[in-house]
């Protein structure tokens, strides 16, 4: 069962444009994390949001956690070719691992291509 739905799955835009990637669920998460993955490598954490309504900024990237802690968005301003990659959202339902199926639940990812 896929608990986290990411949209769009694929996005190709021109350098300088803005974009938003969405991560939605019917489940409540204790936190949402966003990762970026390059081809042939493992995912690398960009940000963790914990509080409903929380907004975090990382240079041109803005992350928001929904008020009900069921959804999140990633907005990129003035996209650059270096932003190209696979963006993954991941939710944690428990505070600690242990005592049952756990770890992170990942969305399927958004393949982002920024054309020069």
């Amino acid at each position, binding site marked *: 069962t*896929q608990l986290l739905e990411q949209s769009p799955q694929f996005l190709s835009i021109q350098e300088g444009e803005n974009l938003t990637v969405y991560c939605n669920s019917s489940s409540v998460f*204790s*936190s949402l*994390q966003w990762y970026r993955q390059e081809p*042939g*490598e*493992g*995912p*690398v*954490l960009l940000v*963790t949001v*914990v509080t409903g309504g929380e907004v975090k900024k990382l240079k041109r990237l803005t992350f928001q956690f929904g008020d009900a802690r069921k959804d999140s968005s990633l907005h990129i301003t003035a996209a650059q070719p270096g932003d190209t990659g696979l963006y*993954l959202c*991941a939710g*944690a339902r*428990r*505070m*600690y*691992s*242990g*005592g*049952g*199926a*756990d*770890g*992170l*639940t*990942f*969305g*399927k*990812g958004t393949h982002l291509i920024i054309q020069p």
Partner: protein
Amino acid sequence: DAGITQSPRHKVTETGTPVTLRCHQTENHRYMYWYRQDPGHGLRLIHYSYGVKDTDKGEVSDGYSVSRSKTEDFLLTLESATSSQTSVYFCATGLGAVSTDTQYFGPGTRLTVL
């Protein structure tokens, strides 16, 4: 960079053979995880460990077993590999609470089962 290595990085094997993948970390992280990544499915948790000899099942654990005899090593074993286990396998480690702590991922192992 959390110093996570995976071996082998690539492996081709035949259906029915046993396969063991190794994850080694140098950061003394308590938590370790095995995920598989497949097109159309994203990353899915196979097994995880919350300490030496303490392991538990994840979302897609059927056909897999794990062992952790020391903090730095987490082994994933496919007792009898099947074609459906062709995938890219990622190991990850974490220092503490999964909810807020970073998970550090290794470079992955690409496994092909013929």
